[in-house]
């Protein structure tokens, strides 16, 4: 494992991952194993886990103790909330959103998966693809997670592992292809998190499997930062106006490129006003850029002295989105208090927060059956549905199935400020039901 040394000072790529899976399928152990095998756990942390394991009467260190961080979690032996883990190989650094499979699974899966470029879904080899697996896969499809890996865990505990693995893989493939994933975006790997089989080291116990280890797969799977399906989308975050002796007239528009790419000289349109101008410079504190793509925080300097402020979007004129005052959206309801028609809420989309009124509840999605029932009276905690929304100020959005960044929004309680829902502009449910991922 010496080639897996975490501490390479070389330039690496950052990959955002999440885990999903049901309780007791060994998720904490797998995450602990990933950290341990990539040497992301240091001696004092191992010592602490070893001491705690001995206290519990165990003969080998319980790797799940590496990750269950809260007092209540250690007391109850369960994972309560999303936690973030860090590990690295010489090629990639990983941010892993470790989501509990316990109660409130949808809420946590949605949180973890919203930023994930890839999700590691776990199943217990003895149980195979269960209803929880189907629900998780449906939610991940809805959220547009680009890549999936199914870790078939505890493979050492089944009688005929070759057949079991083949059966689970076939069933999972048929599930994910019906949800719209291309076969090259989904990989199944037989593992034993407890013994480390096929996590970092190829196992001799799985002669029927000739694919990559989990870590080999994680560090080699091709992942685009954001596929180029739309032109430039640049939500303006903040107007930089130094008004200093050195920079008396400087006026730049700070933000993060949400989609597409920008180059000096590009003609752009400011939305919602529709005014057109040209980008003259892309500034950063380190110097000018000759281009900036999705994910980069920059400051744009424009040719004309136009009216632009926080909440506006600078876009490419060729495929500029129509500002939306009223639209349909798919929401995952995250709050205890149910959503009912007519609710007055706040909506945060990109850098704009505006008042919103929920119109009708169009349908409720059944993640288990991949069907919908029309006109529910309410959406309860963890339920997913399609609703119509009206906003006080138009939002400049793309359909979520086209772009995750410009198609996502939050619904916020105007009273307490809590986040109530994850919102996806457009009818993501229909796309999932029809298996039409784009």
């Amino acid at each position, binding site marked *: 494992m010496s080639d897996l040394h975490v501490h390479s000072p070389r330039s690496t790529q950052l990959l955002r991952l999440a885990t999903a899976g049901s309780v007791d399928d060994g998720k904490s152990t797998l995450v602990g194993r990933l950290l341990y095998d990539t040497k992301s756990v240091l001696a004092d942390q191992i010592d602490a886990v070893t001491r705690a394991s001995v206290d519990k009467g165990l003969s080998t260190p319980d790797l799940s103790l590496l990750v269950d961080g809260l007092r209540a979690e250690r007391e109850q032996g369960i994972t309560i*909330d999303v936690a973030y883990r860090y590990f690295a190989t010489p090629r990639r650094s990983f941010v892993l959103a470790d989501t509990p499979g316990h109660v409130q699974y949808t809420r946590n899966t949605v949180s973890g998966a919203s930023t994930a470029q890839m999700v590691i879904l776990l199943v217990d080899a003895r149980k195979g693809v269960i209803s929880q697996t189907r629900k998780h896969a449906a939610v991940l499809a809805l959220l547009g997670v680009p890549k999936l890996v199914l870790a078939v865990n505890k493979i050492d505990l089944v009688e005929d592992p070759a057949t079991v693995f083949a059966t689970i893989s076939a069933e999972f493939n048929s599930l994910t292809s019906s949800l719209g994933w291309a076969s090259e975006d989904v990989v199944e790997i037989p593992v034993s998190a407890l013994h480390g089989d096929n996590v970092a080291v190829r196992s001799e116990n799985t002669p029927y499997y000739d694919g990559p280890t989990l870590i080999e797969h994680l560090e080699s799977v091709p992942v685009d930062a954001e596929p180029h399906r739309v032109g430039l989308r640049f939500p303006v975050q903040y107007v930089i106006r130094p008004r200093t002796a050195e920079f008396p007239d400087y006026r730049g528009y700070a933000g993060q490129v949400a989609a597409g790419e920008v180059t000096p000289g590009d003609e752009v349109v400011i939305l919602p006003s529709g005014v057109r101008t040209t980008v003259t410079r892309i500034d950063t504190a380190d110097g000018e*850029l000759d281009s900036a793509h999705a994910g980069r925080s920059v400051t744009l300097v424009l040719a004309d002295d136009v009216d632009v402020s926080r909440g506006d979007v600078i876009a490419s004129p060729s495929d500029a989105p129509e500002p939306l005052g009223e639209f349909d959206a798919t929401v995952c309801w995250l709050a205890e208090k149910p959503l009912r028609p007519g609710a007055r809420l706040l909506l945060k989309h990109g850098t704009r927060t505006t008042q919103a009124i929920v119109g009708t509840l169009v349908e409720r999605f059944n993640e288990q059956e991949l069907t919908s029932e029309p006109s529910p009276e309410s959406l309860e905690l963890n339920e997913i549905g399609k609703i119509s929304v009206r906003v006080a100020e138009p939002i400049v959005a793309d359909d979520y199935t086209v772009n995750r960044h410009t198609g996502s929004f939050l619904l916020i309680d105007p009273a307490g400020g809590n986040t109530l829902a994850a919102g996806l502009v457009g009818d993501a449910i229909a796309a999932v039901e029809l298996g039409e991922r784009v």
Partner: protein
Amino acid sequence: MTIDISTSLAEAAARPQLDGTQFDTLDALESEAIHIFREVAGEFERPVILFSGGKDSTVLLHLAIKAFWPAPLPFALLHVDTGHNLQEVLDFRDHVVAKYNLRLHVAKVEDYLADGRLTERPDGIRNPLQTVPLLDAISENRFDAVFGGARRDEERARAKERIFSLRNAFGQWDPKKQRPELWNLYNGKHSPGEQVRVFPLSNFTELDIWRYIARDNVELASIYYAHQREVYQRDGMWMTPGVWGGPSEGEDLQTLSVRYRTVGDGSTTGAVLSEAGDNEAILAEVAASRLTERGATRGDDRVSEAAMEDRKREGYF
């Protein structure tokens, strides 16, 4: 690259054209942090940056300045001074404030000890005493967003922390009532009296911090680099004598080549033996270390299994 905000516009125009297509881990982490700073500037009334002079808060400040370049930093700094800080760190703090022409608020634990609002602990450790002056400074100045340099890789309880972390009027963190954090849409809504702690370095690891310091040539307090110092050994850590006491009987003072991995209270933070005098040598040393920075040199985290979680619940970072 060191930022010099006195650069003129003409010079700015002549600055290098960078290749915008390269985007590695450090670029992604930097971009995320800058995005977070700008969100807070766009949505809050009175944000403040907690600045201790340590490496994480120095990187935090460096990124904040970058986020608003070429405009001046739109936030003030807040330092909670335990009275047990190493002089080099205080000197560095004041040097940075002067260099960038920043506004600095200092909340002093010693003021609270002097008038009886706080009592010295029997073990003499002052880190836990910072919470009250911190919360008072936040409420007196009506700060509504408080940036901290905490990283989620530091400690198990911090791994559960959100980037925007809502605290109640008492500054308390309730890990079971955290808001879900979705996409890069940060929800900063809060009621009057509540505050939001913001952690732009959440996704940096210790090694990322050092690689970033090396890449951007970030100026740090001198104690991070190997130097000759009079130290004595206690609980496996090399401690500096000071107003906080020590050495006790049987703890011999020696002059050794050491450096600090973290900056904290002088009574609980130890140095490590090191010859690493520059960023490259430190990177190599951090890479080879088999101990976390906290396990190696932070006495206060050894108090109990849940020491950090308990302090966070009280209102500490």
